[in-house]
């Protein structure tokens, strides 16, 4: 793995050298070489196991990946998460690169990015606790993560075009850039464009620039796109990615994020090598850590995995008031991530961060009198089982306990 990376670096170095000599015609390559090259390229993991496996090991380098979705679905969250994930050290299967973040919407809030960076760094540190001190890891700090995200703000499409023109120069100065994020590509192209053919031409030109950047510098390009409503004759209106049909060809991989009830879903809409799939995912306050991979440089197989799904749950309870009017009250159960210690057959005891799944409960409350009362109650979660997988052992179950603090819910009886 490391060797192949070395080779790749050499190859890319040669490519850049050629570039300087202005040899415009690319060298012909065998399909087999390309396949080998593609397989040896690591992806940028999203830290959401299902999305990673849906995309075949994360966001691929040398390709354009587009995330589409309605406002509030988590496109910006995904971008920020990726901006941090692209910097994960190589010993954790990351690409240890730098990131260019182009913000057209003005939705880049550093505090949120810092949250994600802190959580990711902490997560990696926890994973590495059992390993000896690592140089790569000691450089992986929140400060470094933030300093390796290069932020451009584009107020209109001219600025966006100009920025894209200048990126190759910037990459020459910073050859470690592994990811370019544009959040969002659609924003400036959805208003003030009377001339649609001009729009199409500019979009095609931008797509070309991105493809060139992606292949020349072996980096991943992630774009976000808005959704728009399309009306078709005899059909219900439906949501489709914006910017029209021709833009659909620009990205290699297209993922549509959508809601269904309270669950968010990612739908792989277009991909060269994966079939259409839909996976559920969630945006949590801390971050999206679900998957755990043990870092092991010698072996190619993953020693074991712990997968625990997490969810936000709503709990409904019905309360009866003295005036006999039943009211239903919605409240949230906040689920915090906890740590569990589990024993693996071939490893030492390790600490794994994971999320707790809290089932919905019904709490009935009957007000005994008209006076205001405060009722404390407890949410208890039973002990659960975690499955883990190991290459040389059979699947085993490990019991563990979860402690949830008791919470207080206030209820005030409706006063006549």
């Amino acid at each position, binding site marked *: 793995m490391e060797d192949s990376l070395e080779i790749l670096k050499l190859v890319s170095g040669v490519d850049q050298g050629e570039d300087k000599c202005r040899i415009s015609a690319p060298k012909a390559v065998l399909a087999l070489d390309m396949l080998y090259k593609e397989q040896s390229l690591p992806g940028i993991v999203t830290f959401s196991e299902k999305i990673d496996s849906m995309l075949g090991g994360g966001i691929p380098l040398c390709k354009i990946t587009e995330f589409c979705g309605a406002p509030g679905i988590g496109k910006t969250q995904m971008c920020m998460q990726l901006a941090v994930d692209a910097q994960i050290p190589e010993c954790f299967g990351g690409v240890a690169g730098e990131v260019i973040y182009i913000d057209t919407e003005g939705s880049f809030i550093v505090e949120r990015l810092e949250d994600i960076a802190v959580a990711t760094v902490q997560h990696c540190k926890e994973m590495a606790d059992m390993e000896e001190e690592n140089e790569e890891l000691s450089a992986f700090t929140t400060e470094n993560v933030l300093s390796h995200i290069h*932020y451009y703000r584009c107020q209109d499409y*001219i600025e966006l075009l100009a920025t894209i023109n200048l990126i190759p120069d910037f990459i020459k100065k910073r050859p470690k850039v592994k990811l370019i994020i544009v959040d969002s590509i659609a924003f400036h192209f959805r*208003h003030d464009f009377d001339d649609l053919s001009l729009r199409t031409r500019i979009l095609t030109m931008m797509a070309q620039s991105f493809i060139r950047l992606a292949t020349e510098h072996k980096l991943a390009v992630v774009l976000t796109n808005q959704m728009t409503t399309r009306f078709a004759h005899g059909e219900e209106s439906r*949501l489709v990615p914006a910017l029209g049909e021709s833009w659909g060809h620009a990205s290699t991989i297209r993922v549509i994020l959508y809601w269904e009830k309270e669950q968010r879903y990612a739908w792989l809409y277009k991909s060269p090598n994966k079939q259409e799939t839909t996976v559920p995912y969630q945006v949590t306050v801390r971050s999206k850590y679900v998957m755990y991979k043990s870092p092991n440089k010698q072996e190619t197989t993953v020693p074991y995995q712990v997968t625990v799904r997490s969810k936000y749950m709503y709990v409904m309870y019905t309360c009866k008031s003295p005036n006999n009017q039943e009211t239903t009250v919605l409240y949230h159960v906040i689920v915090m991530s906890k740590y569990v210690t589990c024993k693996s057959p071939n490893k030492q005891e390790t600490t794994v961060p994971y999320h707790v799944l809290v089932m919905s409960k019904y709490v009935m409350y009957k007000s005994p009198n008209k006076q205001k009362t405060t009722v404390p109650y407890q949410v208890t979660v039973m002990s659960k089982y975690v499955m883990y997988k190991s290459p040389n052992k059979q699947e085993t179950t490990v019991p563990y306990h979860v402690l949830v603090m008791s919470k207080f819910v206030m209820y005030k009886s409706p006063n006549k």
Partner: protein
Amino acid sequence: MPPTCGRQSVADLDISPKVLAALQKSNLLDIKRVLSLSNSDIEHMTKLSKGDVTGLKRLASESVLNRVDPISALDLRKSDNNVQRLSTGCQEINKLLRGGILARGITEISGVSASGKTQLCLQLCLNAQLPLDLGGLSGGTAYICTEDVFPNRRLIQMIQFFRRKSQKLSSKQINFDDNIFIEHISDLEELNFCIHRKLPLLLGAHNVKLVIIDSIAAIFRCDYAVKEMLQRSKHMCTLANKLRDIGDQYKIPIVCVNQVTDSLSKKEQSQVPALGLTWANQITSRIMLSKTPQTISLPLTTVDGLTVGGIEATVRRLEVVFAPHLPKQGVYYVVDQEGIKALTTKT
């Protein structure tokens, strides 16, 4: 800094006379146009060499950007011009919003009628006048009313309480009723005129730090037939774009109030903010206010001769629907004489 595309013509660029002549010949003098064309198109049109065109593009690109090199997130975090927040005047709500309303993009406050949208806006008007260290923006407000007349009486009532509260915190005397500029608008034409012409003048001449439009829905929900929906989206986008530009230029929060509409397709959420997806794509943060069937009686207290409480208040809910920096969560609140107050577990 304002988005000034300072130089518009390629003649201002530092290019060789040969290149300039070729560009003049093919009538390619507008920098915007140069950037909108691909390298090969320009080569084709001007018969210039590849290197010349690449150089031209680079110079043109540099001339339209305020800063050529990106800023790292770390510098952004450390820098003073970090995104300002406007306090809502309620500790709990500020905590939920991580400081308050963002001075970036458009913040939408939507909700059913009488859910407290205007109350929240009035409270923002007052808080905006507080000094920076108290969560304010030490500036006035441009309040654009499209629905109803400005609730002057209610504002004066709130000012009484607010003055007492602010005097405790800061020695500075602020004339709270002097810094709110009110504009009544009845249709889109007037609104456009107000935003494109009057507002920049007002922002230039006075210390105005907050723009509120109450409400944006009223303008766009009438006046348009079903056939004119495309037109409506376009108008909405242009308006939102201008508002965002103003916000970016002066680094001030833009707050738009929106109404709600009954959702036709989704059963799980009966009421959604009006104006549809087009509008939702334009805004940065969305806050939803709603009413619950419950009421709560507030204890009666008297401070400095002013009575607070002693009323039966409906419990309402403030929820962050989406925002780039906030999780989806909410808080219950009531409205009393002083304004909006979140319900904590203690009250």
